[in-house]
């Protein structure tokens, strides 16, 4: 599994030393060579000084999961030498800074150790500690370019694009890149056995992270009010929304904004703002992560019980509590599905990559308004903050927002009496009016007991009628949330069921299993409530592996609760250490189980 255009490498550096831009440069250069590539940033919850890693996987076959093995490790952080050396696959390579004598930690039988004196070269060539540190990263990018045969013309173009307006910086970067490149070329057999050859497999693709993609989705959906409170890993989403709005929504003549972005005092307020704006008729959303979702619970229940549209984009991270803010998980599934007290159920969309973040964010606004209810987009840190190679985004100009049932002044004239929660069509969705419409359209939103006319009541039947309507509405949404993605293999005996960003690893695992004679059917769930296809698929398989990133098998629980599927037919494969899932993990878990209980 390691050869031309099929290998993985990783850089171990120190947070805050500027390695991110060198790593990004490498990843993008490979992408521009037409070769499918994935980058995973494994960073600490810290601004400066702690260990950080960046893994780049090159896959001619287009696999996008985190690599199961590393062919080359660049060890630049003495604090993690031992760990980094241990992570090289047998027969692989280690690249280190040979400005100083070889650290005993770096010695290991069965791997090839390459030294380049990055530190010394940069001290000799550049002034100032900061420059020397920053440029050392570009120097290792240069050495990797020689070792892996990265197209230097592409790198030069990229450096010019980045520093074109700052000739001094451009020169320094060029120089640092050449230092590394020339040293490696002069001292080692370049390229290494695994290296890059140009392809044409990225032409219709882009590299983008899920937060930027969701932000763009919100702009395209016509969202005008964004309210939020900063939290990793969701922060960049609203920052990107702000940047896109500045680009597309500023009135040229006056400089005034066709949007309102409010940095709230906390998540409680962010949720309140979204609900107020949704009630007033704007498409409004908030972006947050687990701790924020916890704080928003009361308001989520209010919006559910009073039929108010609101979009919540949850970029999940490791919990409980502050947990590991810069690590990924899918552990908010249950708390989203039944968020808030009382009998509640909510619509959720589960994107698997940034392209789906874009599309599903648009859908979330349509669903929120159609069903007049909170809708969650359950992204996660891996999708949200890592750059993914996805098909370029498309837009159909004939799209018009689904505003759902809204009665304007004209429509109100035609009816005798407006009753806010009257289910005329039998689908559980009552028509609403927006504040300002006047006349008989005025009504009173209350989180306390109300009847179908919107009037206060504690009447037992009226309450039950209302919550039954809400359940009907929820059930009706099953036909409107995205269907699962399903694929079959001939002779499949077991099925793999998964959700969100696990897809990359699970699809790869399916191929690996097939190569070993284990055929699998596949289903990725994309929406809650589960639609009929989910039930049919589960019914058709004696055994399914449910693969997800949390400790307690939350997806499996949801399937059990909502569909009544029995426990033992669903075998959990759980990965919850906080790192993106690898195919290797899925393969070994499936095989281990099959060895125990032949399917």
């Amino acid at each position, binding site marked *: 599994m390691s050869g031309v255009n099929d290998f993985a490498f990783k850089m171990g550096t120190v947070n805050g030393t500027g390695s991110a831009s060198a790593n990004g440069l490498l990843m993008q250069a490979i992408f521009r060579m037409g070769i499918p590539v994935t980058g995973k940033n494994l960073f600490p919850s810290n601004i400066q000084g702690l260990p950080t890693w960046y893994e780049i996987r090159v896959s001619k076959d287009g696999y996008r999961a985190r690599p199961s093995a590393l062919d080359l490790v660049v060890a630049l952080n003495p604090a993690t030498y031992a760990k980094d050396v241990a992570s090289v696959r047998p027969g692989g390579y280690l690249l280190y800074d040979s400005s100083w004598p070889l650290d005993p930690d770096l010695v290991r039988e069965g791997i090839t150790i390459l030294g380049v004196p990055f530190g010394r070269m940069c001290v000799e060539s550049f002034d100032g500690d900061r420059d020397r540190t920053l440029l050392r990263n570009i120097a290792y990018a240069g050495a990797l370019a020689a070792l892996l045969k990265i197209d230097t013309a592409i790198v030069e173009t990229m450096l010019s694009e980045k520093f074109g307006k700052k000739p001094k910086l451009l020169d320094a970067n060029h120089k640092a890149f050449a230092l590394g490149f020339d040293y490696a070329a002069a001292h080692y057999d370049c390229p290494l056995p695994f290296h890059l050859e140009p392809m044409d497999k990225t032409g219709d693709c882009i590299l983008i992270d899920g937060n930027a993609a969701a932000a763009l989705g919100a702009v395209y959906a016509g969202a005008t009010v964004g309210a939020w409170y900063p939290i990793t890993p969701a922060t960049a989403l609203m920052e990107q929304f702000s940047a896109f709005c500045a680009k597309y929504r500023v009135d040229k003549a006056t400089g*005034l904004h066709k949007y*309102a972005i409010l940095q*709230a005092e906390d998540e409680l307020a962010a949720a*309140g703002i979204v609900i107020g704006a949704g009630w*007033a*008729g*704007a498409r409004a959303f908030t972006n947050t992560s687990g701790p924020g979702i916890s704080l928003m619970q009361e308001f989520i229940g209010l919006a559910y019980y009073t039929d108010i549209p609101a979009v919540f984009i949850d970029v999940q991270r490791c919990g409980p509590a502050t947990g590991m803010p810069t690590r990924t998980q899918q552990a908010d599934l249950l708390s989203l599905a039944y968020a808030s007290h009382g009998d509640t159920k909510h619509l959720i969309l589960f994107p698997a990559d940034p392209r789906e973040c874009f599309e599903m964010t648009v859908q979330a606004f349509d669903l929120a308004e159609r069903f007049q209810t909170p809708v969650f987009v359950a992204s996660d840190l891996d999708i949200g903050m890592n750059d993914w190679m996805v098909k370029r985004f498309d837009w159909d100009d004939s799209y018009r927002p689904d505003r759902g049932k809204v009665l304007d002044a004209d429509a109100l004239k035609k009816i005798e009496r407006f009753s806010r929660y009257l289910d005329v069509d039998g689908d559980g969705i009552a028509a609403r009016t927006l504040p300002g419409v006047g006349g008989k359209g*005025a009504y009173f939103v209350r989180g306390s007991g109300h009847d179908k006319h919107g*009037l206060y*009541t504690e009447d037992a039947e009226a309450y039950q009628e209302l919550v039954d309507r809400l359940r009907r509405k929820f059930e009706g949404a099953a036909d409107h949330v995205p269907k699962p993605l399903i694929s079959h293999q001939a002779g499949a005996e077991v099925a793999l069921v998964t959700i969100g960003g696990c897809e990359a690893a699970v699809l790869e695992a399916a191929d690996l299993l097939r190569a070993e004679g284990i055929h699998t059917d596949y289903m990725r769930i994309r929406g809650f409530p589960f639609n009929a296809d989910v039930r049919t698929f589960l019914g058709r398989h004696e055994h399914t592996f449910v693969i997800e990133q949390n400790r307690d098998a939350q997806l499996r629980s949801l399937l059990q609760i909502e569909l009544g599927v029995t426990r033992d037919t669903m075998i959990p494969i759980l990965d919850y250490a906080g790192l993106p899932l690898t195919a290797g993990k899925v393969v070994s878990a499936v095989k281990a189980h099959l060895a125990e209980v032949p399917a």
Partner: protein
Amino acid sequence: MTSIAKPPVKHPTARTNGLGLTLRDYEGAMSTLCAGCGHDSVTAALVQAAWELELEPHRAAKMSGIGCSSKTTAYFMKQSHGFNSVHGRMPSVTTGAAAANKGLTYIGISGDGDSLSIGLGQLSHAIRRNVNMLYVIENNGVYGLTKGQFSASADVGSTSKKGEANEQAPIDPVLLALTLGGTFVARSFSGDKRQLVPILKAAIAHKGLALVDVISPCVSFNDHDGSTKSYAYTREHEIEAVQADFIPLKREITLPETGEEVRTVELHDGGRVRLRSTAADYDPTNRESAYAHVRACQARNEIATGLLFVDENGRDMHDHLKTVPTPLVDIPFEQLCPGKAALDALMPRYR
């Protein structure tokens, strides 16, 4: 306890305002509060103020949190949309609604529990953002709806109905608003319609957040001898800073002959508030002296009422957000969505 609609009888001789609406048109559902509750007097003052201001009912939105006080929104202007949200969070809901639709008049009603305990953060930030709204606190020093616990505005030494004395210093919403840069700060008394109505009118006309703290006694739990928010106590200890009279431009200004010093404050929409100071040197446009006045009254065990501070040049939330004049909800989708061509042009940035 249900919503009780009032019988829609109109007296043929009832006076109408410029919109052809009578006072009754500004009423809401029948109150379910205790007979004699101060909050109902505030409702009556709001009805009067809205009628006199000729507020179009459908262009107003009534916002509240949770508490007896927060029920007030149900009892006036039945033709307006209303929102009875969750405890202490009326400010954020109003902020969102105002962000979405700046074309409406927002009337927020809250209680001292709602605003000064659970909702203190949201109140503070609504003041800081200067959300364009009237923010009434119906202040009774207790939690009415949960039956008589002390609220954060209960004075030291004030006793509960059971006789237990409050030990903790109160939070004074007026001092809070002055400190946080509030652009309109007033206090009145539910039983003093003569003072309260013009203050409410000026507050509604104010651009930005107008905080009106109304001492509004709770007859069930806080109208007894040990209370400092009882009718009797308030009547005895009230000190009127300035007597306010709101005069919109459309009406001729008639002022009773009093011979006292009169100050006029220009309002943003062209209306003005005429102020009659009890103290000749009281300046309602000076934040520091307003603060000093309230503190001085407090030190003397007195309650400063009246329009205490106003700044008509304050920038409101939409000024800060730099939004277009059109309410965001009225902007057509075509102007919001950049379209396919823009997306195609953007894609190369991600290569």
